[in-house]
């Protein structure tokens, strides 16, 4: 019987939870890399034993770890992330020019078909690629070199490239999101890029609410069977594109708040989408202290709260952008982690939830691997 492996990155290490396909009993192992921030871990779709992890902290900088045995043992690989050419500057919070400076890797996205190829999203915003299992990294400089690059300003979390969407069947298409520059798309494998922000509206955030760049996009999700349909959780607003990011329209509908960080799509129902509404940009916790996942079965617009098994009073945690994910089993498993250290799982597409862990360090990311 198949199984599921959850890769949980936290503020103080990595944890791995495993279950068989019934998803009723879980074993937790960890912490790996104790004391380090694990912004993201992700397994290769082409080889489930190959797992990459981004390990960092303020003292010792960035390390990338790779496992070749399904997250049991790890080896540090390359951490030389150098911006190519003249680094240039971007506006700092006070508007002054600031040289581009590498801080950390927020997100690792393994290739869909090559276990040795992996993309890394950096702060300050840049996209790196490794073709040798993470041993060496090269910047795809066309992104940062876009004519708008010198205007990109950081969001509160830094100028970070946090979302990388690879497109099944269209290997050259890569969609990335940067806080707070917005969405960019390449159709030539990352050589050249175009902003993909038409339809986004950031009222009260940008001088021009419909500006070409400058939108604080929090996360983008896609169903592999319909790569032209993208769902976005923006700083405010839940958005949808039906043309691969060419244009966006709002699908926030009846959500109690359209602020949030995480978004994902059911593995078997491309119109079923999950978000976790957060009260506001200044109050990063669920509205009314009730932790609710919202599910739309209509591709957005109409949303239903999913509450069974989730705390419905006095809950003031956040769910960060990489901390919501799905598995590939049927019915679809849905998982998320909180800044309070809980990991919740649903084995029935979100109808009911159980806590797999309650007292981990703040959860930064959760990824699910569906094992053969």
């Amino acid at each position, binding site marked *: 019987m198949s199984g599921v492996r959850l890769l949980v990155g936290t503020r103080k290490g990595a944890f791995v939870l495993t279950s068989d396909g019934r998803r009723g009993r879980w074993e937790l192992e960890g912490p790996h890399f104790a*004391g*380090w921030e694990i912004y993201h871990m992700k397994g290769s779709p082409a080889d489930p034993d190959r797992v990459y992890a981004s390990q960092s902290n*303020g*003292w*010792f*900088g960035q*390390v990338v770890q790779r496992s070749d045995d399904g997250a049991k043992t790890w080896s540090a690989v390359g951490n*030389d992330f*150098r911006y190519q050419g003249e680094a240039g500057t971007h506006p700092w919070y006070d508007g002054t020019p600031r040289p581009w400076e*590498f801080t950390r890797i927020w997100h690792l996205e393994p290739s869909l078909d090559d276990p040795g190829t992996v993309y890394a999203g950096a702060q300050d915003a840049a996209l790196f690629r490794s073709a040798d299992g993470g041993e060496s990294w090269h910047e795809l400089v066309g992104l940062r070199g876009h004519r708008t690059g010198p205007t990109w300003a950081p969001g509160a979390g830094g100028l970070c490239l946090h979302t990388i969407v690879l497109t099944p069947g269209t290997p050259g298409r890569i969609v990335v999101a940067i806080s707070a520059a917005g969405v960019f798309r390449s159709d030539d494998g990352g050589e050249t890029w175009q902003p993909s922000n038409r339809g986004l509206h950031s009222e009260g955030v940008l001088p021009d609410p419909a500006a070409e760049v400058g939108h604080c996009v929090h996360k983008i999700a896609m169903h592999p069977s319909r790569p032209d349909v993208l769902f976005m959780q923006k700083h405010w607003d839940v958005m949808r594109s039906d043309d691969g990011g060419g244009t966006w329209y709002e699908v926030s509908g009846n959500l109690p708040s359209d602020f949030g960080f995480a978004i994902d799509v059911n593995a078997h129902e491309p119109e079923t989408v999950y978000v976790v509404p957060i009260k506001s940009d200044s109050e990063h916790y669920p509205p009314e202290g009730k932790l609710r996942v919202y599910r739309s079965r209509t591709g957005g617009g109409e949303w239903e709260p999913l509450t069974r098994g989730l705390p419905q009073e006095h809950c003031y945690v956040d769910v960060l952008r990489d901390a919501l994910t799905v598995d590939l089993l049927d019915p679809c498993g849905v998982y998320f982690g909180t800044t309070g250290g809980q990991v919740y799982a649903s084995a029935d597409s979100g109808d009911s939830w159980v806590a797999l862990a309650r007292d981990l360090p703040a959860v930064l990311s959760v990824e699910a691997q569906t094992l053969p």
Partner: protein
Amino acid sequence: MNLRGDPANPVQVRVRLPAQLRELAKLRGEVVVEVAGTVTQNAVLDALEQLHPTLKGTVRDRGTGCRRAFIRFFVGETDLSNTSPDDPLPVAVAAGNEPFVVVGAMAGG
């Protein structure tokens, strides 16, 4: 002892690392590195990184080669963090009497 060092006769230098870096490099206790020539911060760290490449970028910035902001260097009770990385270290380091200590600066409240 020749403080300038002798390339033909490297000295053994003890290095003490913080726990996170020991774990990263899969080390227990102090590590001993061989330094040929003058024993300086950079010479010690070059030898350390050659012996344990996983430590590259964790003590000195990859791009600038400078000490990372929240790292300090001590020999005994002397903080050498702001001395030139190419100055000779105290003779006690080259003699093996004192370790070169890498410290993660205190942070948090």
